[in-house]
């Protein structure tokens, strides 16, 4: 420890001591005795459970790479979430029978006992607002809204009968990504990095990129670490300007000085750790060191200017302008650099028909045009780099949309739109050991409810963990006296689409 750092720590200690008074002494003595008693109770409770999931947690190196339970097909995951919930009926779930019913009153049988977010009274049915064709050898139905994706249909496995029980964006997004509609659970990416660690020393294991002008409704909790140590939360990078705020050293601060100050802070933190043994302090130290290395590595990996022209042409990217396309290209770069889990959120898919932007025949079409080319390019680019087999790509929203046209509060909306719908929607997966060119699950003739091959968000999560090499029932973390897992008490690996 340098003399200088010693002085800093000494000063920090003196500061703390100055604030302590006689009252602190009495207060601490009382709570201290209580805490000691409680501590002995708690450690007593855990004497059988010491051999549990917390083995994974090495607090000095929380991101140290680990081997999964079994050999996983996928090494990383790119999850493309269309926040707001895209309409499956205009994209993948082709329902010609719904066209016949277009404009007719919705039968009472579909409304009885049901609750919708905005539909009131008796809405009209709304036929598909897009032309569908069967694509590729697999004959997957994809609408003209996604002409590019249609060309790679044979790489994709569709899940046509996903069901959720949340019809509001925030809770539904939380359920999709944390396994609970309420706040407080770790997200899939956090679980994945907790289980696998990070192979790249200079980059976080879990990166989040957002586009579309807004954050997802559920806020940052959808990439939070919940009760897992905070080092596992997603690191959000910006699409414009510095990828991480304040990643650059301020003017006048050189790299050596930065290093020296981080060393001093870490030494002070280490001294505090010796005193209190709180693993969060070690996580903090690791974060400071990671941040220092990230100052070099992140601007480098987040820079798409150096990509060749044909790549920009392929993804439709425009460097310097924040967009979903840029984020998709970044996702590919990050995965190439060994990042485990890249989570993309694109906002603006909530098509109620209250305005032009939210119309299934206008706004939705325009949204599709912003994602179609980049996603297609992503699949092809991963493929040519030999990475598609080990990268799981997931696309979806938080719920589906009704086969009825929304009538907000019983009145006709100015544009054609659909309300939130929990009973059937489409999610697709590709790469990462998923079957190519298949479809699982069916909805009824009008796409109202799932009739076979139903899957839940828990099943999707179980499948993602399975592809990474984890038994979702065994990837656990002890918290508040019991073991928690991503899929709570549910979840089934969707073996029907696993290659």
């Amino acid at each position, binding site marked *: 420890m340098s003399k200088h750092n010693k002085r800093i720590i000494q000063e920090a200690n003196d500061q703390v001591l100055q604030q302590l008074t006689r009252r602190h002494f009495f207060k601490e003595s009382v709570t201290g005795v209580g805490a000691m008693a409680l501590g002995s109770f708690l450690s007593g409770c855990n004497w059988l459970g010491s051999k549990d999931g917390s083995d994974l947690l090495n607090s000095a190196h929380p991101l140290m790479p680990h081997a999964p339970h079994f050999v996983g097909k996928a090494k990383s995951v790119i999850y493309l979430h269309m926040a707001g919930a895209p309409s499956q009926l205009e994209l993948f779930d082709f329902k010609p029978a719904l066209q016949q019913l277009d404009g007719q009153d919705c039968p009472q049988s579909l409304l009885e006992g049901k609750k919708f977010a905005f539909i009131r009274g008796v809405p009209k049915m709304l036929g598909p607002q897009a032309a569908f064709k069967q694509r590729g050898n697999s004959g997957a139905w994809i609408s003209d809204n996604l002409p590019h994706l249609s060309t790679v249909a044979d790489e994709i496995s569709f899940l046509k009968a996903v069901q959720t029980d949340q019809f509001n964006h925030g809770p539904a997004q939380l359920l999709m990504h944390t396994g609970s509609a309420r706040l407080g659970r770790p997200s899939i990416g956090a679980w994945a990095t907790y289980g696998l660690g990070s192979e790249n020393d200079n980059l976080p294991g879990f990166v989040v990129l957002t586009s579309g002008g807004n954050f997802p409704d559920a806020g940052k909790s959808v990439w939070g670490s919940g009760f897992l140590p905070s080092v596992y939360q997603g690191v959000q990078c910006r699409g414009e300007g510095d990828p991480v705020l304040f990643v650059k050293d301020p003017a006048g601060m050189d790299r050596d000085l930065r290093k020296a100050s981080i060393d001093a802070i870490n030494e002070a933190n280490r001294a505090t750790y010796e005193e209190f043994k709180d693993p969060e302090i070690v996580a903090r130290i690791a974060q400071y060191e990671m941040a220092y290395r990230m100052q070099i590595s992140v601007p480098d990996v987040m820079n798409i200017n150096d990509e060749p022209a044909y790549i920009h042409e392929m993804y439709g990217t425009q460097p310097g302008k924040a967009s979903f396309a840029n984020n998709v290209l970044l996702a590919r770069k990050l995965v190439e650099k060994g990042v485990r889990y890249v989570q993309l959120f694109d906002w603006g898919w909530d098509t109620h028909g209250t305005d032009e932007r939210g119309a299934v025949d206008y706004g939705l079409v325009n949204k599709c045009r912003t994602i179609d080319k980049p996603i297609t390019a992503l699949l092809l680019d991963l493929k*040519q780099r*030999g990475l598609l087999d080990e990268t799981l790509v997931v696309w979806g929203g938080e719920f589906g949309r009704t086969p009825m046209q929304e009538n907000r509060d019983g009145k006709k909306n100015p544009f054609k739109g659909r309300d939130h719908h929990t009973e059937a929607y489409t999610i697709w997966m590709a790469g990462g050991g998923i079957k190519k060119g298949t479809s699982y699950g069916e909805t009824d003739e009008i796409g109202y409810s799932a009739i076979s091959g139903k899957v839940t968000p828990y099943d999707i999560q179980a499948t993602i963990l399975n592809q990474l090499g984890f038994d979702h029932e065994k990837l656990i973390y002890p918290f508040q006296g019991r073991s928690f897992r991503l899929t709570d008490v549910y979840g089934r690996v969707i073996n029907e689409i696993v290659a």
Partner: protein
Amino acid sequence: MLFVVTEFIGNFHPVLVHLPIGILLFALVLEVLQTNTKYQSVAFAIPITYLTGAIAAILSCITGWLLSNTGEYNESTLNLHRWMGIAVAIVSVIGYYFSVKKQASISKYIAVVLGILLFTTGHFGGTLTHGDGYLTKAFSATNSDTLFVPKPITNAQEALIYKDIIQPIFTEKCIKCHSGSKQKGNLRLDTEEGILKGGKGGAIISVGHAEKSEIFQRVSLDPLNEKHMPPKGKTALTEQERLFLQWWIQTGIGFSKKVKELDQPNSVKLALTALEKNASAAIIPSNIPNELVDKANESLLIDLQKKAVVVLPIAQNSNYLSVNLINLKTLDEKTLSQISDLKKQLIWLKMPAIQLSETAWQKISTLQNLTKLSIEHSNITDKQLQYLSELNQLQYLNLVGTAISSKALLQINGWKKMRQLYLASTHLVTSELIAIQSKYSKTEVDTGGYRVATLVTDTQLVKAPIIKK
């Protein structure tokens, strides 16, 4: 109704049995204690202990008898358990008699006999509920939960419908609870007679009518339904398996028929070809060797990890290793020789953009067990590629963005197991790529260069016509 009541009472057996076990064992303890003069006073409590124990034993016998009538249990074990249980009740009554008579010399021996009877009866009871060998399961190497792997079917039309298709489904999903050792609902699915006989509720199959057959109804329910089989927590039948079961019932549950002798609706035909495909998929060699390998030297691994080499077992249950040099730009001699010390275990090696010397590339070629090698954007040259031709186990090779030429690739002898070869962003021209593709005919050669053409609509916005109000 009577049957329902008796079954209800019988269900109390598993709770009640613990009373005689505890009480009568305590009688044994008291018997031993009273032989010591210091504790002689406990003799006073012995008769009442025997009495309560005997009453509990008799109640257990009655409830046990009622429970056994449900017929869900293995007959021979059940008989042993039943008569030994009755023996416990009788012996405990005798014990009571002699303890009241204060004939300690006799009641002492009775207590010992009772102790032995209790343990054996208890053990047989345990076998009935938990299955054969439940007690020593933790010690046995082969856990009964190990995955059942059905024999791959290469020619589905020649396969036997029952033996090759239906029976494996039952074996994997049903017989844990419906076979000789445990017959829940009085149903056995491990024998033809059992399947035809059905269970407690009568026949489970209505020949020719899958929808009316209980077995098909029960496996087709919503998995959350209480009546769904296999029950919650067990793996349900897949859609394909249900389809086969349905088809088998529709076509008259043939036990010895071949698949080709039966009518095949389109959906079944598709499923049958899928079966064959799965079989051929299983034949494709996995990139993990079948042979077991010793654990690698732990201290070597730790040493390498300190140098930012990501070295990991490919999974927690394997000793094979993967190495990822993503954090390094080059390899010094020491690190390289440490890595090559792992050559027995090392099967996956990833070195994106690595810059290696001539000798280092030579050394890489000694890693004989490598099945996956990623050296995209590395400094490998034609000459050095020839060294790698010695890697006979290679199945995956990523040469994206390297400076290799087609000549070098065409010269290679070896790589007989190569399945995936990635050549995008090399300087190869189309005609060379075609030559390479024809040389590696069994390999999926990806030459990249994919384009996503820009459509006019890609950058246009659709707008609603403006309507004046």
